[in-house]
């Protein structure tokens, strides 16, 4: 087991860490930084519950070794809120009842955030593509899609 020195910026805060060769970004976020908003579902890149934004792109944090991402920037669901105010996506998820058990929600939010950062006017199909790697087993997808559409509108209005 070797220790690898890594500096990563998570939600705007720099962290200098020594990580093991098997430590996944998901483990670093949850176990070291105690950012437990990011969930572990399948651990093999199928469910999307662990989605975070890595250098601007939605990725599975269970499919990235922390040792691989020295110098990178990570945004997790905890980083969406600014000064105690929820992000418009979070507001829209509440308003549209896009949450039931909530386990998939952080991943859904991060996939949606990555989409809207790149494409502020997504079509319904583009929204579906953005969240195709995020499984929801209770609410279903309709409310989630509506929430993302509505968040896109309110982000534009601001």
């Amino acid at each position: 087991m070797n220790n690898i020195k890594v500096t990563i910026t998570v939600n705007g805060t720099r962290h200098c860490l020594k990580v093991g060769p098997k430590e996944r970004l998901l483990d670093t976020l949850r176990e070291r930084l105690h950012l437990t908003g990011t969930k572990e579902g399948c651990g093999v890149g199928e469910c999307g519950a662990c989605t975070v934004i890595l250098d601007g792109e939605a990725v599975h944090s269970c499919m990235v070794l922390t040792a691989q991402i020295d110098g990178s920037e990570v945004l997790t669901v905890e980083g969406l809120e600014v000064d105690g105010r929820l992000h418009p996506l979070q507001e829209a998820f509440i308003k549209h009842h896009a949450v039931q058990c909530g386990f998939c929600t952080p991943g859904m939010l991060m996939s949606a955030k990555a989409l809207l950062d790149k494409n502020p006017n997504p079509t319904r199909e583009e929204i579906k593509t953005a969240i195709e790697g995020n499984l929801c087993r209770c609410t279903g997808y309709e409310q989630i899609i509506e929430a993302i559409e509505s968040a896109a509108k309110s982000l534009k209005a601001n």
Partner: protein
Amino acid sequence: MIDYEFLKAHSLDEALECLDSREGVKLIAGGTDVLVDIRKENARAKGFKYLLDVSGLRELKFIEERCDCVAIGALSTHTMLVESPVINKYFPLLASAAKTIGSTQIRNRGTVGGNVNNASPAADLLPPLIALGAHVKLLSLKGERNLPLDEFLAGPYRTNRQSGEMMTEVCVPFLGEGYFTDFQKIGRRKAMNIARLNLAVVLKIDGETVFDPRIVPGAATAYPIRFSKTEGTIAGKRVSEIDPAKIGETASEEMISATGIRWSTPYKRIALASLVKKALETIFAEAKANE
């Protein structure tokens, strides 16, 4: 329990030196196959001592139009293929294939080099790349080798990459005038879809006659190969003489002659026939619309 030492390459030279000086080095880029294999302790993830991370080699992240081909750097992601104007202009079937891989998260991380070198029988980029006559470039401290992709593949999850070598790019030669292409895929669901079957067809139509057909199904045989017998039945034929359904059946027979009857054959026999039919019909309709 799989144990390994993690190494990071900061340059291509460093990666090649590491591959040259050590035994038991496994490469990792996007990790979307490697990390699943390690986690599931798959047999193919065993027997390595070092995991060499090449994901930081920006010099291998490019899609470049050259005089005779489009070169795709090994670290180009599937998302780059989907979004590349060059790929969409010259090889739309490659963009279509990339679009069907995994999910947005997988496409953002997974690389062309990874898809080719993992050499899964169901890899979505292999059939279109083989049908397009792609070559791979292998670098080592000893020099450079260029191999046609179909010679590079050696079996399911096996390639002819030598120890010490690293695949750095895939070159896809331009198709001449009059070529048509199509990619088809079926899986159990639309997203996160590992191909039950996929198919790339490339052919030229000149004055109603089919030339240079290339038919490459994936997940049909041990690893994707050109179906030369099926290709032979349409080469030199006029489009009006070709019955796509019949050619589909021929392709299914060719699959069975390669694999024998397997548990999946009753399904794949019908499914492959209809994929081939659909691809040929799509191409012929496009050719007609272009007249």
